[in-house]
C-alpha cells in the first residue's frame, strides 16, 4: 500500500512538473514576443537587401530592382518584399500584424496614420525601439515600433532618387522609418 502511495505521489509530481515545465514560456511577455518576431523580420530584410538587391543591382549590376518588378522583369524592392511577407502572414490568419512605415514614405499609404504610429516613428529616430499599447477598432494592441535603418547603398540611392520621395538626403545608417508590430492583448 505504502509502495502504491509512493508511486502515485511520484506520478502526480511528474505530471505537475510536466505542466509546470513550460512555465518559462509563459514568462514571455508581449515585448519579448514582439522582439523575437522583429529579430527574424529584421534579419531576413537585411539579408534580402544586402545579398540580393544591393549585390546584384548596385555592386555587380546584373539586374535592377523595380517597383513594377513584374512588368520590368526586375527584382522586388526590399520594402515590397517586406509587405508581401506581411500580406502572406495576414492571409494565413495570423493574430499579429506588421508593416513598414515612415515619416517620409515614397508610397503615401505608408505614412504614420494612428497617433501611436506618429509618436513611435518620431521616437525611433533616436535609434531605440518604442513600446506602448493602443486601441484600434475597439480592440487593444501591444504596439512596438522598431527603427529601420539604411543598411545598404541601395536603400538611400533609391529613396533619394525617387520622384515621389519626400526626403532626398538620407545617408548610410540613417533611420529611414520604422517597423510597426502589433500583438492583440485579449
Amino acid at each position: 500500500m505504502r509502495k502504491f502511495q509512493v508511486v502515485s505521489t511520484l506520478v502526480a509530481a511528474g505530471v505537475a512538473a510536466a505542466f509546470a515545465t513550460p512555465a518559462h514560456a509563459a514568462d514571455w511577455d508581449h515585448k519579448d514576443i514582439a522582439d523575437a518576431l522583429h529579430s527574424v523580420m529584421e534579419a531576413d530584410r537585411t539579408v534580402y537587401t544586402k545579398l540580393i538587391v544591393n549585390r546584384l543591382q548596385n555592386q555587380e549590376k546584373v539586374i535592377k530592382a523595380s517597383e513594377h518588378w513584374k512588368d520590368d522583369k526586375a527584382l522586388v524592392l526590399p520594402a515590397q518584399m517586406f509587405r508581401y511577407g506581411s500580406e502572406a502572414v495576414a492571409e494565413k490568419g495570423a493574430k499579429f500584424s506588421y508593416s513598414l512605415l515612415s515619416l517620409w514614405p515614397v508610397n503615401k499609404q505608408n505614412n504614420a496614420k494612428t497617433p501611436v504610429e506618429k509618436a513611435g516613428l518620431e521616437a525611433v529616430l533616436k535609434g531605440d525601439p518604442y513600446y506602448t499599447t493602443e486601441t484600434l477598432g475597439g480592440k487593444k494592441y501591444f504596439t512596438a515600433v522598431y527603427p529601420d535603418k539604411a543598411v545598404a547603398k541601395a536603400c538611400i540611392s533609391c529613396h533619394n532618387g525617387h520622384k515621389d520621395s519626400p526626403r532626398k538626403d538620407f545617408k548610410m545608417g540613417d533611420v529611414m522609418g520604422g517597423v510597426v508590430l502589433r500583438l492583440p492583448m485579449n
Partner: protein
Amino acid sequence: MKRLAQYRVWFVWLGASGLLAAWLAYAIQTPGQQASFMPGKVTHAHHQIELKCAACHAEPFKGREGIQEACLSCHAKELKAMDDSHPVSKFTDPRNADTLAKLDARQCVSCHTEHKAEITRPVGVTLPDDFCVRCHSDIEKERPSHKGMAFTGCAAGGCHNFHDNRALYEDFLIRHGEGGKLKDDPKLPDRHLRDFMVTMEYLDGEPITASDMDGRAELRPVPKLVAEWEHTAHAQAGVNCSGCHQAKDASDTLAWIKQPDHTVCTSCHKEEVEGFLTGLHGMRLKQGMTPMQPGMAEQPMKPSAGHAKLTCMSCHGAHRFDTRKAAVEACLTCHDDGHTRAYKASPHFGLWHEEISGRGAKGSGVSCATCHLPRVEFTTPEDETRVLVQHNQNDNLRPNEKMVRSVCMNCHGLQFSLDALADGKLIGRNFKGMPAKQIESIRMALEAEKRGAARKAVGDTDETEE
C-alpha cells in the same frame, strides 16, 4: 370518438403543417426544386447556377464566412493574378480599422450582394456610386489635379478600377502614353504547345498517320473521322486514338471511351479546361450540372442553337479540332447580340478574312477569340511560362480595361485602347469607326510626371505647394 372530433381542425392543421414541413425539407435539398427559396433574381454572372444553392451557400448556417469561401473557390485565382489593388489584408490590418468601419471589404458580398437585382449595377456592384469617397474623400490633398472631379467618375471615366489596375497605374500610363492608334508590328503572340509538350517529354512529337492508329478495332472510326484526325495538330504531334479515347475507369483499369468529355482534354490542356469551367460556357459543368445551353442564356442567342450543349467539342468539333472555326464560326453559331452581328462589317473581321485567305500574315487577323479568348501568358504547374488561350471568356470582360494589356495593346496604343473601350456605341458597332472622346488619365499622368521632374530639379517635394 366524439371527444376527438372536436379537435378535428387541429388534426387537419397538424397534418397540413407536417406535409408542408416535409415538402420544404425535401425541396431545399433537391436541385431543381429550390426555386421557391430564391429570395431574388441573381446576377448575370451566376444565373446559370442559381438553382444549385450549395454552389454559393456551401454549408447551411455557416454564414458569410461560408459564402466567402465559395466566392474564393472560383475567383481567388483571378484576384491574385490581377494584383488586386484592395486585397483583404489591407482591411484586416488593425491600422486600417477606421477604413474597415467605412467599407468592410473583407467579404466579397459587402460590395457584390446577390439576389438584389433592383440595386445591382455593372460588374455586379450593389453599393451606391460614391463608394470610393468613403475612404478617398481627401484625394485632392494628395493630388490637386483631382480637385472638383465628380464622385461618380473614378471608375466610370476609364481611370481607376477597385481591383484591377494593371493597365491604369500611373507609371504604366506614362510609359505607354505616347503610342498612336496602331503599333508598327501589330500581331498576336504565338503559342508553342507542341514544343512545350515535347520539351516536358509528354509527347515525342513524331507525326503519325492512319496506319499507326491504335483504336481501330475498339472504336471503328468511319473514314471521314480518320481523315479529319490525320490533318490535325494531334496527329502531327503523335497523339493517337488512345490519347483521348482511353482513360482509367472506376476500377483503375484502362478502358476505351466512345465520347470523351472535358476531363480527358484536361490531361494535356489543363489550363484551357480550367478556364472553360470558370467562365459562363462551362460553369454549369464545374458544378456537376448539365452543360450550358444557349437557350438558357440571358444574352441574345440564335433560336436555332437553343438546345446545343456546351462542351469542348461544341466549339472545337471532335477529330477536326479546327481552332480557326472555334475562333469565329463557333461563336456566330449561337451569339446574336448587336456587337456580334456587327463583327463581319468591322475592320477586325477584314483582317481576319485576309489572314484565313492566306493574304494576311500569321497572327494579323482579329477573330472573336482574339479578344474574348485571348492568348496570354500562364505559369504552368511545372513553373514554366507559356502562351495559352484563356478559355474563360469572362476573364477580361468586366471592367473592360482588363482587356487593354492582354488584347488591345498587341496592336494598338494605350490611349486609343482606353478611348475605344470607354465608348459603348463604338463597342456596339464592333469598333467600326473612331472613339468619340479621349480619356484624360494619360494626359494627367504625363503632366504629373513633368511636375515631378520640375520639383526634382528645384528640390521642392510637395505637390500641394505648387
